[in-house]
C-alpha cells in the first residue's frame, strides 16, 4: 500500500511537472518577439496575408485559450500540427521522424564513450599513479576541454576532407540502411563521444579509487583474495553505480544538447527540430518537443534508478 502511494505520488508529481513545464515553454515562446505568421510568410508578409494567417491558425485567440486548446489535445496524445516549420505535418510526425536519428547517433556515441571510458578508467585506476594513469587522466581532461563544434570541424577536416573515410555531411537513417547509418553516423557520434568519454572515465577512475580504499576491499585483501578477483567482485561492481548515474545524467544532453554537432554533420535530430521550430516561432512544435524531452528524461531517471537497484540490491530494498 505504501509502495503504491509512493509510486502514485511520483507519477502525479511527474504529471504536474509536465503541465508546468509545458506552460513555462508556452509562455516563454509567446513572449519571444516575432511571430509564426512572420516566419511562415517571410517577405511576402503583407498585412492582409498576416491577418489571414493569424486567423487561420487561431493566433488571435487569448493566450489562455490557446494553451488550453493545446493542452486538452495533448492530454489525448495529440501534440498538434506545425504551422510555420513544416506546415500541416503533425508534431508527432516531426518527432517520430527525428527521434530515431537522435537515439541512433546518441546511442552510438554512448557506446563509444562507454567503451573508451571503461578501458581508460579501469586502467587508470588499477595503475594508479603510473604512466598509464597519467596518460589516461591527461587524455580525459584534454578531451573535455575542447569546444564541441570545433572538434566536429576538425574531425571533418581530417577524416572526410583529408582522408575521405567518412562523409562530411548527411546522415542515412538506420531504417534505410544500417551500414549507412553506422558509417554516416560515426563522425558525429565520435564528436559527441570524445568529450563524454573524458567525463565518464574520470568518474569511473575516481569511484574505483575510492572503492579500493573501502574497508571491505581492504579486508578482502587481508583475507588473501587475488587482486583481479577483488577488482571484479568487489570494486568494479560497486563503482558502477555512480558511473551508471553519470551516464543517465547525459540523457538530456544527448537529446537536445548535441544540436550543434547535428548541424555540423546534418543529422536530422529531435534537438534540431526544436531549435528550428524555435527560430520559426512554431509554438506548438516547440511545446511538443519540450513535453517529449520531459517524458524521456523522467523515464531515464526511473531507468537509472532501476539499474542501480539491480547493481546494488540493498538500495532497492
Amino acid at each position: 500500500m505504501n509502495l503504491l502511494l509512493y509510486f502514485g505520488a511520483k507519477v502525479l508529481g511527474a504529471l504536474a511537472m509536465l503541465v508546468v513545464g509545458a506552460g513555462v515553454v508556452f509562455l516563454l515562446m509567446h513572449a519571444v518577439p516575432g511571430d509564426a505568421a512572420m516566419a511562415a510568410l517571410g517577405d511576402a508578409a503583407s498585412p492582409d496575408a498576416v491577418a489571414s494567417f493569424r486567423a487561420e491558425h487561431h493566433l488571435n485567440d487569448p493566450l489562455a485559450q490557446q494553451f488550453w486548446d493545446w493542452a486538452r489535445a495533448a492530454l489525448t496524445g495529440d501534440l498538434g500540427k506545425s504551422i510555420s516549420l513544416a506546415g500541416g505535418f503533425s508534431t508527432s510526425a516531426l518527432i517520430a521522424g527525428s527521434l530515431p536519428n537522435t537515439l541512433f547517433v546518441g546511442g552510438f556515441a554512448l557506446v563509444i564513450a562507454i567503451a573508451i571510458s571503461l578501458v581508460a578508467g579501469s586502467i587508470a585506476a588499477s595503475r594508479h599513479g603510473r604512466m598509464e594513469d597519467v596518460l589516461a587522466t591527461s587524455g580525459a581532461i584534454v578531451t573535455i576541454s575542447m569546444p564541441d563544434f570545433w572538434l566536429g570541424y576538425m574531425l571533418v577536416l581530417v577524416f572526410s576532407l583529408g582522408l575521405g573515410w567518412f562523409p562530411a555531411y548527411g546522415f542515412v537513417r538506420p531504417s534505410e540502411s544500417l551500414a549507412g547509418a553506422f558509417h554516416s553516423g560515426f563522425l558525429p557520434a565520435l564528436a559527441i563521444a570524445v568529450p563524454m568519454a573524458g567525463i565518464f572515465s574520470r568518474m569511473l577512475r575516481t569511484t574505483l579509487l575510492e572503492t579500493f580504499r573501502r574497508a571491505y576491499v581492504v579486508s578482502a585483501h587481508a583475507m588473501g583474495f587475488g587482486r583481479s578477483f577483488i577488482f571484479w567482485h568487489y570494486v568494479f561492481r560497486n563503482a558502477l553505480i555512480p558511473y551508471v548515474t553519470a551516464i543517465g545524467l547525459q540523457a538530456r544532453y544527448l537529446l537536445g544538447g548535441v544540436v550543434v554537432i547535428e548541424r555540423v554533420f546534418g543529422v536530422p535530430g529531435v534537438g534540431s527540430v526544436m531549435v528550428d521550430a524555435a527560430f520559426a516561432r512554431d509554438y506548438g512544435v516547440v511545446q511538443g518537443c519540450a513535453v517529449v524531452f520531459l517524458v524521456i528524461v523522467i523515464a531515464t531517471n526511473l531507468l537509472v534508478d532501476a539499474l542501480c537497484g539491480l547493481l546494488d540490491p540493498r538500495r532497492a530494498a
Partner: protein
Amino acid sequence: MTAPRKPGSGMWYTFRSNRVAQAGSAILLFALVAIVLVRLFSPYDPNDKDYMSILLGPSLEHPFGTDSFGQDVLTRVAYGAQVSLLISVAGLVLGGLVGTVIGMASGFWGGVFDTVTMRFTELLYSFPTYVLALCLMLLLGYGSRSVSLAIALVYVPNFARLARSMTSATRAENYVTAARLMGQSPARILLREILPNIAAPLLVQFSAGLGFGIIMEAGLSFVGLGVQPPTPSLGVMMADGKDYFQKGPWVLTLTGFSVAWIILGLNLLGDGLRDALDPRLRRRLS
C-alpha cells in the same frame, strides 16, 4: 598524525603538492602572460577592419593570420578571451548566487518551499541545456548580458541541488544545533555556520563551470545568437571562422586551440582545487 595546521595553510599545502593544480596554473599563467603581452604590444586594434588584408594565412606579421574582416586574429583572441571569460564568470556568479540561496533555503527549511523549488530545478534540469539557453536568448535578444543570463539559468539548478543536499546534511551537525540553541537567527546560521562548510564543493562546481560557460557561448554563437559585434568574443570568432573555414581554416582552428588551451587550464586548476578543498579527499591525503 601531524600537528594541526591553520585551515588555510592545509589548502595551500595540498595545492603546492598537487601537480595537477600546478599544471593548470602554469597553463593559465602562460595564457594570461600571452594575453597581456599581445594586448600591450600588438600593433593592431581588435576591431581594426582592414579590407586589403582579408583572410591572410599565419605569418610573422599576423601569427594567427587575419579573419574575414582583415582583423588580426591573435589580437582578437587576446581581447576575446577576456570578454568570454567575463561572460562566463558573470553567468556563473549569478547562477551560483541564485542557485545557492535557493538551495540553502530549501535545504534548511525543507517543507513545501523545498518541494516546489526542487521540482522547479528538476524541470530546468530536464530540458537540454543548449535548447534552454537558446530559448532564453531568443527572448532576451543578443548581447553579452543575455549570454551570461543564459549561462546562469543553466547553472541555477546545479548549484541549487548541490547547496540543498549539503545544507540538509550539515543541518544535523553539532555546531548548527549549537548555534540554533544559542538563539542565532537562521540567516546568521546559514551565512556564518553553514556556508563556510559547504563553500568548497560550490567553488569546485564554479571552477568546473567556467570552461563550460565558454563552450556554451561558442555554441550559441554557432547558430548566430551571441555577443553583438564588434565586440570580439571567442565564440563569435569561432562562428565566423566556421563560415570561412574553407577559405581560411586557421581562424577556426587557431581560435579553437586557444579556447581549448584556456579551458584545459581551467579544468586542471578546478581538479586541483577539488583535491585541495574536498575535505574527504584532503583527509585521505594527510
